[in-house]
C-alpha cells in the first residue's frame, strides 16, 4: 500500500476512534468515575440490572432449545438460526434508520468535522463505524443466544464458531448500508426544500414503513403454508429439509447466506456463503462510500439553516401573538409539547413509538395468522382471546391492561424529559418557577404521550381483537393508573442523573441509559404486580375483587410516586450542576 494510502487509513482510524470515544462518552465516563468520583453508584446499579436480565435470558435459551429439539427431527433446525439472524437484521434496519439520520445529519460534531481536511466519505465512514458498533450491542441480545445455543446443541466444530464470529461482525453492514444509501439520497432532496423537518419525518416514516413491509413479507413467506393451509400441508412443508430456511431467505437473501455460512462451517457451502455475504457487504459499503463522496455534503451542508421569511408583524398582529399571561405551568407544558413535536428525532423516538408499538403488534398478529388477514376476519388471535375470556376473564382484562400499559410507557418520553433539555437546562434552573411546578408540567406532557399509547392500543384491542367494552373499560382504567406510576418513576430516574451534555439529540432519548434503566424499572414493577395478582388468585378472591385490589394498589402507588416526584424535583433541581 502506498504511503498516501496508509496515511489515509490512519486518518480514517483517528476519526473513527474520536467518533467512538465521543459517542460512548468514554472520556467523560472515565473522568466522572475516576477523577470526579461521581456516578459510582451507577456501577452496581447497572450490574444489578444486568443480573436482573439473567433469568430472562435463561428462559429464552430454554425456549430456543425446545424449538431446536422440535425442528431437528424435521431437518429444519437451520431455520432457527435464520430466524435469529433475520430478527437481528430487521432490528438493525429499523433502528438503523434512526441512528443513520441522527448520526449523519444531526450530530453536532459535524460542525467540527466538515471544516477538517477530510473527504465526505471519510466523515461518513467514521459515522458508519460508530453506528455499526452500536448495532452490535443492539442485536447481541437477539442474535447471540440463538447462535450460541444452536452451536452448543449441535456440537458445532471450529468452522461454525469462526464463521459465526465473521457473520456477526458483518451482520449490520448490509442493512445499514442499504439504509444509509436510502437516507443519503433522501436527504439530498430534502435539503433543497424549505420544509426540512416535515420531510425528514415523512421520509423516516416511509423508510420505517418499508422495513415493516419487509418484515411482513418475511413473516408471510415463513408462515404461509398456502391458501387453506392445513395440518397436512404444514407437515408436508416441514418434511422438506431447509424449506423453511429457503422461504425466509427468499425475501431477504443475506439472511440465508449468513445462516448457511454459519451452519456450513468450513465446508464448501459454508465458505461460499461466507464469501458471498462478506463480498456483498463490502460491495455495498464501497457503493455507499462512492455515493457519500458525491451526495453526503450536498445533503448535509446548510441542513440546519432554516431560512425563515423576514416579515415584520403589525401592531395588531403582535398584540394577538403576545400572550396575555398564562400560568407558568401552562407555559412549560406548551414548551415541552412544541419542542418534542418539532424535533424529528424526539418525535420519532418518543411520541410516534406510542403508535408504532401497537402497529407492530398488529403486524405480528397478521403474521401469526399466516398472512390470511385472520386478525381482521375473526382469525387466530381473536379466537384465542375469546377462548381465554370464556375460561378466565381476569386474564383477558389484565393481559389487555398489560398490553396497553406497555404501549403507553415504552416510548422513553418520561425517562428523557430532563435530558432532552440538554444545554438549555440553565433556563429551567434560573426561571422563577418552583421545580415541583416544572416537574408537574413535564409530567402532564409525558403522561399525555403515554395516554396516546394506551388509546392506540385500545383501538388495536377493539378493532383487531374485538375486545368488548366490558373488558376494555377496566383494562383502560388500570393502564391509565399504571401509566401515572410508570411515568413518575421514569421521570425520577431521569431526574436523578439527567444527560445534559449531548451533542446529538439521538443521545438524549435513544442512547440514554436512563431510558434503559426506566425500562428495567417498568419490568420490575409489572413483574411485582404479576406476582401480586398470582397471590390474590391463590387466596381465592373473585375476579372483581382481584381487579379492585390491583386498581386500588396501583392508584396508591401512583399517588405516592407522583408526590415523590414533586418532592424529588424540589430537592434535585438545585443540585444539578
Amino acid at each position, binding site marked *: 500500500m502506498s504511503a498516501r494510502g496508509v496515511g489515509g487509513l490512519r486518518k480514517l482510524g483517528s476519526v473513527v476512534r474520536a467518533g467512538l470515544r465521543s459517542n460512548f462518552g468514554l472520556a467523560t465516563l472515565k473522568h466522572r468515575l475516576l477523577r470526579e468520583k461521581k456516578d459510582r453508584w451507577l456501577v452496581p446499579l447497572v450490574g444489578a440490572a444486568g443480573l436482573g436480565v439473567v433469568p430472562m435470558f435463561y428462559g429464552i435459551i430454554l425456549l430456543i432449545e425446545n424449538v431446536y429439539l422440535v425442528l431437528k427431527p424435521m431437518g429444519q433446525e437451520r431455520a432457527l438460526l435464520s430466524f435469529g439472524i433475520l430478527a437481528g437484521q430487521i432490528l438493525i434496519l429499523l433502528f438503523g434508520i434512526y441512528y443513520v439520520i441522527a448520526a449523519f445529519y444531526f450530530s453536532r460534531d459535524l460542525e467540527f468535522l466538515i471544516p477538517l481536511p477530510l473527504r465526505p466519505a471519510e466523515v461518513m465512514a467514521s459515522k458508519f463505524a460508530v453506528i455499526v458498533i452500536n448495532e452490535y450491542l443492539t442485536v447481541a441480545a437477539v442474535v447471540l443466544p440463538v447462535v450460541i445455543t444452536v452451536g452448543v446443541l449441535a456440537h458445532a466444530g471450529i468452522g461454525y464458531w469462526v464463521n459465526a464470529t465473521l457473520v456477526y461482525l458483518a451482520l449490520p453492514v448490509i442493512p445499514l448500508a442499504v439504509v444509509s444509501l436510502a437516507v443519503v439520497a433522501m436527504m439530498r432532496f430534502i435539503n433543497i426544500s424549505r420544509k426540512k423537518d416535515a420531510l425528514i419525518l415523512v421520509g423516516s416514516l416511509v423508510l420505517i414503513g418499508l422495513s415493516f413491509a419487509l418484515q411482513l413479507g418475511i413473516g408471510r413467506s415463513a408462515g404461509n403454508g398456502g391458501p387453506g393451509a392445513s395440518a397436512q400441508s404444514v407437515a408436508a412443508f416441514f418434511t422438506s429439509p431447509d424449506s423453511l430456511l429457503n422461504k425466509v431467505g427468499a425475501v431477504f437473501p443475506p439472511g440465508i447466506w449468513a445462516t448457511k455460512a454459519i451452519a456450513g462451517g468450513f465446508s464448501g457451502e459454508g465458505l461460499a456463503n461466507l464469501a458471498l455475504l462478506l463480498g456483498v457487504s463490502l460491495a455495498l459499503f464501497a457503493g455507499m462510500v462512492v455515493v457519500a463522496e458525491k451526495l453526503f455534503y450536498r445533503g448535509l451542508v446548510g441542513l440546519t*439553516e432554516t431560512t425563515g421569511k423576514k416579515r415584520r408583524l403589525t401592531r395588531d398582529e403582535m398584540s394577538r401573538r*403576545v400572550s396575555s*399571561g398564562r400560568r407558568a405551568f401552562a407555559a412549560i407544558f406548551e414548551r415541552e409539547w412544541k*419542542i418534542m413535536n*418539532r424535533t424529528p428525532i424526539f418525535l420519532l423516538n418518543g411520541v410516534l413509538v406510542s403508535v408504532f408499538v401497537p402497529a407492530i403488534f398488529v403486524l405480528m398478529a397478521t403474521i401469526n395468522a399466516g398472512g390470511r388477514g385472520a386478525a381482521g376476519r375473526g382469525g387466530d388471535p381473536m379466537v384465542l382471546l375469546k377462548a381465554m375470556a370464556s375460561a378466565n376473564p381476569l386474564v383477558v382484562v389484565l393481559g389487555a391492561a398489560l398490553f396497553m400499559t406497555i404501549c403507553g410507557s415504552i416510548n422513553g418520553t418520561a425517562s428523557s424529559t430532563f435530558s432532552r433539555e440538554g444545554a438549555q437546562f440553565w433556563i429551567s434552573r*434560573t426561571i422563577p*418557577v418552583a421545580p415541583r411546578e416544572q416537574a408537574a408540567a413535564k409530567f402532564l406532557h409525558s403522561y399525555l404521550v403515554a395516554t396516546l399509547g394506551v388509546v392506540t392500543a385500545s383501538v388495536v384491542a377493539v378493532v383487531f381483537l374485538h375486545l368488548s367494552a366490558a373488558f376494555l373499560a377496566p383494562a383502560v382504567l388500570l393502564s391509565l393508573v399504571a401509566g401515572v406510576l410508570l411515568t413518575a418513576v421514569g421521570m425520577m430516574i431521569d431526574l436523578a442523573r439527567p444527560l445534559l451534555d449531548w451533542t446529538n439529540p439521538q443521545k438524549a432519548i435513544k442512547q440514554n441509559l436512563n431510558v434503559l434503566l426506566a425500562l428495567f424499572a417498568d419490568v420490575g414493577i409489572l413483574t411485582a404486580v404479576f406476582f401480586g395478582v398470582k397471590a390474590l388468585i391463590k387466596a381465592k378472591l373473585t375476579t372483581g375483587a382481584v381487579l379492585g385490589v390491583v386498581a386500588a394498589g396501583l392508584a396508591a402507588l401512583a399517588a405516592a410516586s407522583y408526590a415523590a416526584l414533586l418532592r424529588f424535583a424540589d430537592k434535585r433541581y438545585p443540585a444539578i450542576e
Partner: protein
Amino acid sequence: MIELTHVSKSYNRGKVKAVDDLTLTVKPGEIFGFLGPNGAGKTTTIKLVVGLLRPDAGKIVVEGFDVATDGLRAKQVTTYVPDYPAVYERLTGLEYLNFIGDVYGVPKAERLDRIGKWLEIFELAPVVTNPIQSYSHGMKQKIVLAAALLPAPRVMVLDEPLVGLDPRAAHQIKEMFREHCEAGKTLFFSTHIMEVAEKLCDRIGIIHKGKLVACGTMEELKRIDRTEAGQSLEGIFLELTDT
C-alpha cells in the same frame, strides 16, 4: 443589590478551588464589571449568584433574598445571560419571549411595549416569528438579552454579554446597561474587554485563581500601582494576574 460573603466553591472534591473565600457587594444603581483571566472563577461566581451552582461555603444574597434558602424569590428579581446563547432552537423568537414573559409573570401591556422596544433596538422584529434555529450566533445572543430585559429585573447578571455582537448591538447594550442602572437597578457582568470595563463600569473587580485580588472604582484601582503601566486597566490587570 448582590452580596457575596465568604463564598467558596471547589470542583473535583475540593481539588480545584474555583472560588476562594470571595466577599463582594454590588450596590443598587451600580454597573459592576468582573474581570479575570480564563479559568479565574468568573463564570463560577456568576453561576453561584444565579443559583446554577451551590457554594461549598458562604452566603449569597440578592435583593435581600438568600439564594440558598429563598432561591425562588431571588430568581424572581434576577435575570441571567450566559456566555453561550443556548436557547430553545425549535421555538420562534416570539414564542421564547412569551415563555419568559409567562414564567416571570409580565403583564400583557408591559410585555407588548417591551417586546416591541427590544425587538426594534436589536433589529430582530423582522425575524421574530422564525425559529431561533435560523438565527445567527449574534441574533441568538440578542434574543437571550431581549428575554433577560423583558421582565425589567432589579438585578441583571451577564456572562460575557458583548461576545459575538456587532458594534451597533454592542453600543446598544452599553446604552441599555446605563439606562438599567440609572433606574436604580443592579448590573453585574463579566468581560474580557478592558476598554468596556474601564469606560462603562462604576466599579471593577478582578478575580485571579478564585480570589478577588482587586476591587474598586477605576481611580481606586489606579492607586494600587502608581507607575505609568498602572494607570490603565490593562496594565493593572496584567500586573495583578501575572502569576
